[in-house]
């Protein structure tokens, strides 16, 4: 078995959102926050706005294109209809200082804002937060003409706790799963939403159906695929159904709108990835394992030459350990039998 830890570390590093996009997200949020605080079309109360969604939970990958922003409106505002509040929010966002191209579109629960000059999309959600924004919130649901419960900040806190209690492995696992999905299900309309995958993985880890102790990234990912297969298998065997995945913070089903055809595609891709992952883990030659993991994750899983550069960087940063067989691995020593070589400079022409 070849665990290839450096390869997975490189994969995780390469799918991190770029610093440029993170700054753009912060700028876009800052702009909206400042505007809404000053604008009197729709009253807001402290903290006025806050970030939510995958960007806030650090589960975003690659190019961040969308950011969810919660706008806190005064308590009691839910006596207005969702349509009225969304209309007011849309009106209040029409003129943003210094922004030339703003496109606004009302959605079920939010106003979608496209900021062309930032190449950014924001979903701006009005919320009533009677107990604070980190507790259960009321958000408008226009089609049902009512305010419904949501708890995005509470979920983010739960995910942080789960991640910490599992050795910081849950968030990277979610990112790897999203990378696999984006590699094999390219059509935005047909791929499962990130939040569905997150909720499914959260539930499986929290229930102990995915264990993290002592597992390398490859085995953990394979086990997660396998647990997802088991979780969805029952629904897959029926001809008309999709799995009912719960939001861990509200216990509501989040996958009600998953179309059966899209779910079937997901299961086919999942079975394919499970097969490749099994073979990668059992491969006798590291090159075979690398080739199979590249099938799972695409070109962002490093090839052999990239690996050399990756480990060299880690070694130069003094972040390696040498095991009892002489194996050089990335990361500081976690076991008493490993040795961290002192920082050195090789010398001599030979």
């Amino acid at each position, binding site marked *: 078995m070849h665990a290839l830890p450096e390869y997975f570390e490189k994969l995780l590093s390469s799918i991190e959102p770029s610093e440029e996009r993170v700054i753009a997200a912060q700028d876009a949020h800052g702009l909206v926050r400042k505007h809404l605080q000053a604008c009197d079309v729709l009253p807001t109360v402290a903290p006025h706005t806050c970030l939510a969604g995958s960007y806030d939970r650090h589960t975003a990958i690659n190019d961040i294109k969308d950011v969810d922003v919660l706008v806190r409106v005064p308590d009691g505002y839910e006596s207005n209809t969702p349509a009225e509040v969304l209309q007011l929010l849309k009106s209040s966002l029409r003129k943003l200082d210094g922004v030339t191209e703003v496109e606004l579109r009302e959605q079920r629960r939010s106003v979608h804002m496209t900021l062309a000059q930032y190449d950014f999309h924001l979903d701006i959600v009005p919320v009533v937060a009677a107990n604070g924004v980190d507790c259960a919130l009321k958000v408008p649901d226009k089609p049902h003409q009512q305010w419904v419960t949501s708890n995005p900040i509470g979920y983010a806190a739960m995910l942080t706790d789960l991640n910490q209690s599992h050795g910081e492995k849950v968030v990277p696992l979610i990112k790897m799963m999203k990378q696999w999905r984006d590699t094999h299900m390219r059509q935005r309309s047909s791929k499962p939403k990130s939040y569905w995958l997150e909720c499914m993985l959260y539930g499986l880890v929290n229930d102990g159906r995915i264990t993290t102790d002592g597992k390398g990234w490859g085995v953990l990912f394979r086990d997660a695929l396998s647990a997802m297969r088991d979780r969805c298998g029952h629904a897959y065997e029926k001809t008309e159904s999709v799995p009912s995945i719960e939001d861990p913070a509200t216990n509501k089903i989040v996958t009600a709108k998953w179309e059966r055809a899209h779910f079937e595609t997901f299961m086919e891709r999942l079975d394919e990835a499970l097969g490749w992952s099994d073979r990668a883990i059992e491969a006798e030659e590291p090159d075979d394992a690398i080739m199979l993991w590249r099938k799972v994750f695409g070109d962002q899983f490093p090839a052999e030459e990239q690996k050399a550069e990756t480990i060299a960087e880690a070694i130069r940063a003094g972040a390696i350990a040498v095991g009892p067989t002489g194996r050089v691995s990335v990361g500081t020593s976690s076991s008493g039998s490993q040795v961290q070589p002192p920082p050195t400079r090789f010398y001599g022409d*030979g």
Partner: protein
Amino acid sequence: MASTKLPKFRVQQIPPVRHVVDMRRHFPGFAYHKAQGGVSVWSGTLQPSDGSPQYVVEAQLAGHGRPRVFVRRPALVGGVRHRYADGSLCLYYPDDGTWHRGRPLSELVALAAEWLWFYEAWLLTGRWLGPEAPHGIGKG
């Protein structure tokens, strides 16, 4: 990492028996024997990555001289950098004080594993990717 020349000072040498204990803990596959001339020798194998061969390595400590680490098998490719004239590996710039007789031998062997890792990367890429002391600042 030290980049300027450090003052020389006497260090408390670790007796061979403590090296034996240290090596048994960190590199249990290495065997110790006393060779002619009172040279302490540890030999064993190092495999720096999954796809590497098992390099047979020998570390020698003799008197007050510098330690010598040799790769006995497989033969290293000619033209590789960072070796002394006798074929032993040049694991650090001597004046940096990276390793001395007051430090555990396992650190020296770990440096040898690191050297082998960079050797394999050199075979793959044609470039020595490891940290180097600039040439011309002393004799390696």
